């Protein structure tokens, strides 16, 4: 069966791009080294040969210029998929994303649409150090007008990217964790779409709810497996899209378990983790049996040395400890 076939996260993304380009001529790809080279992580491999240099455009290293051009192209009827090679490079182009793409629709009273997808790469784990390893999704969540997607499996990656390109009429920031590129999983050969705003319960449980994103979903699942042996039943939820957010699935799980741990690779303050904690205490306070625990990196830049980087990234052990803490919590 085609649907039991296993491919990598990179291949899943590539299939989505290929399919979207084949069914909609307005879809174009722009970015640094996305053409002949196929993208530094190989996501656009083969598309240049198939669709040509007009639709798969290599750009100069000028992020503000080409992301801004994508904004203009989207306004005029194209559906650009732009690659920002590392999310850390956001700073040199942020105006075009948060002041332009995000706001043009609102500022014009709805007369302008900006249906573009900004694909970018986040995450620590390959010793790329402080300027190539960050998880800055909170910056996008903060700004009204942007939709923010962060998949954790090849299956989700393909379905969400197809929705982002083919169905969305708003600017979408699509964030890929570099530690996920090589993972394999079942992905149907045929195209399919995953709607935004629908969380996926990656594992059902009754004692503790864990909300996790991207690579942290896998660590949370590993923690849940190990804790099952200790008699703790952990539910792991991957929101998949951070904007829009599937508030109902998250709140229903908290109401069921009464305990919440949020695991995210973003910096700790003013983050996705604090956002979910605020959601829990403002909308499900009376259900909580323990304080909410957040598992995030410390408020330091990402270090280079392997030993330090390993310490920086939330580990399965730290996640297990947080789950035990909320599970065994006793009100004083």
């Amino acid at each position, binding site marked *: 069966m085609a649907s039991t076939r296993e491919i990598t996260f990179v291949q899943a993304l590539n299939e989505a791009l290929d399919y979207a380009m084949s069914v909609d001529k*307005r879809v*174009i790809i722009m970015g640094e080294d996305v053409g002949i080279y196929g993208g530094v992580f190989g996501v656009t491999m083969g598309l240049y040969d198939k669709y040509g240099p*007009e*639709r798969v*455009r290599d*750009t*100069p290293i*000028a*992020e*503000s*210029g*080409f*992301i*801004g*051009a*994508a*904004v*203009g*192209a*989207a*306004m*005029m*009827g*194209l559906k*650009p998929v732009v690659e920002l090679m590392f999310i850390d490079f956001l700073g*040199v182009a942020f*105006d*075009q994303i948060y*002041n*332009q793409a995000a706001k*043009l*629709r*609102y*500022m*014009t*009273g*709805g*007369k*302008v*649409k900006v*249906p573009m997808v900004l694909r970018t790469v986040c995450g620590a784990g390959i010793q790329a150090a402080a300027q190539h390893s960050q998880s800055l999704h909170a910056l996008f969540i903060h700004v*009204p*007008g942007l*939709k923010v997607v962060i998949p954790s499996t090849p299956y989700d990656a393909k379905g969400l990217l197809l929705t982002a390109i083919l169905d*969305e*009429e*708003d600017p979408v920031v699509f964030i890929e964790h570099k530690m996920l590129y090589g993972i394999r999983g079942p992905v149907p050969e045929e195209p399919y779409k995953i*709607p*935004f*705003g*629908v969380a996926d319960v990656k594992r059902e449980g009754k004692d503790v709810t864990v909300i996790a994103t991207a690579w942290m979903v896998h660590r949370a699942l590993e923690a849940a497996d190990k804790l099952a042996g200790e008699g703790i039943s952990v539910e792991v939820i991957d929101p998949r*899209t951070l*904007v*829009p*957010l*599937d*508030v109902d699935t998250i709140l229903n799980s908290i109401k069921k378990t009464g305990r919440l741990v949020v695991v995210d690779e973003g910096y700790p303050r003013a983050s996705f983790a604090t956002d979910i904690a605020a959601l829990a205490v*403002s909308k499900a306070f009376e259900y909580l049996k323990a304080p909410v625990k957040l598992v995030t990196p410390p408020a330091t830049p990402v270090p280079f040395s392997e030993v330090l980087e390993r310490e920086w990234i939330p580990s399965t052990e730290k996640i297990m400890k947080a789950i035990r803490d909320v599970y065994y919590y006793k009100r004083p």
Partner: protein
Amino acid sequence: MAQREELSKDKLMWMYETMVKIRLHENKAAELFAQGKIKGFVHLYVGEEAVATGVMAALKPGDVITGTHRSHGHYIAKGGDLKASFAELFGKRTGSNKGKGGSMHIADPGIGMLGANGMVGGGIPHAVGAALAFKLLGKDNVAVAFFGEGGSNQQNFHEAINLAAIWKLPVVFVCENNLYQISLHYSKQQLITSVAERGKAYGIPGVSVDGQDVLAVYEAAREAVERARRGEGPTLIEAKTYRFRGHFEGDPEVYRSKEEVEWWINNKDPIKLFEKYLLERNIATRDELDAVWKRVAKEIEDAVKFAEESPYPSPEELYEDVFAKPTNGVLVWRWD
């Protein structure tokens, strides 16, 4: 005044009327701002009317422009509605942007005005993207990016112009060099004496024109637009101009002398210069020109009345236009 092409009287009178429209729109906006009826930041285009008018005279329907925070003139010259403009300045629901944009963001994609922009240089790459869309969708339209000499130091200017150049896109870059980046004189912003020289760095033509001469601007724009439509790529035009009013309404203007401003008003008023041209060549009579002012003044009066009588948006409209369509999950956060 420069003229190489014989223009029809209709076209010349359209240029004249457009400049008068911008002038009277801006004078009225100044008055309403002083009365406290228009709030926020208002950057007026008085003195620069020939630039927008000359460029727009070279465009055809379907061509698009992106603006600056001083874009009322661009909007009007592109065919913008005076009623929608004043209503927007008042923050009314009937405004061009439903009261959500205001002076700095005035837009109407229906007429090809993709937007004024509050970020200096912010709209330049949008014109490049629009031109890319024209190219890939097989349309023979052109996109024009307006910006100031201050904007020409911005990353967006350099990156966008380079992209348009390497991709040979149908874009015209129009730098309105009005000598001041808020308070900083041009000579303190860059060492080169003409922004047009920057074209050389990107392998494209750079042309400098008298921005007070509407026919000179038109001629430069026409050549650039034709070149773009032929698929030969972008041109950088620098229109040397001057703003007669401060950077924004309420600007104390400590950075320039009254004498300097008066010299420009007395010697380089684009409307007076064009009037002289039309009269000396017997293209129009004094009466015809006076009739234009009278007609436009009435239009402005009607537009202001419309704006004043229009309703404000309802508070619920705050939540509209953030996203294109409803979706699963929570989009606009509400803590209640």
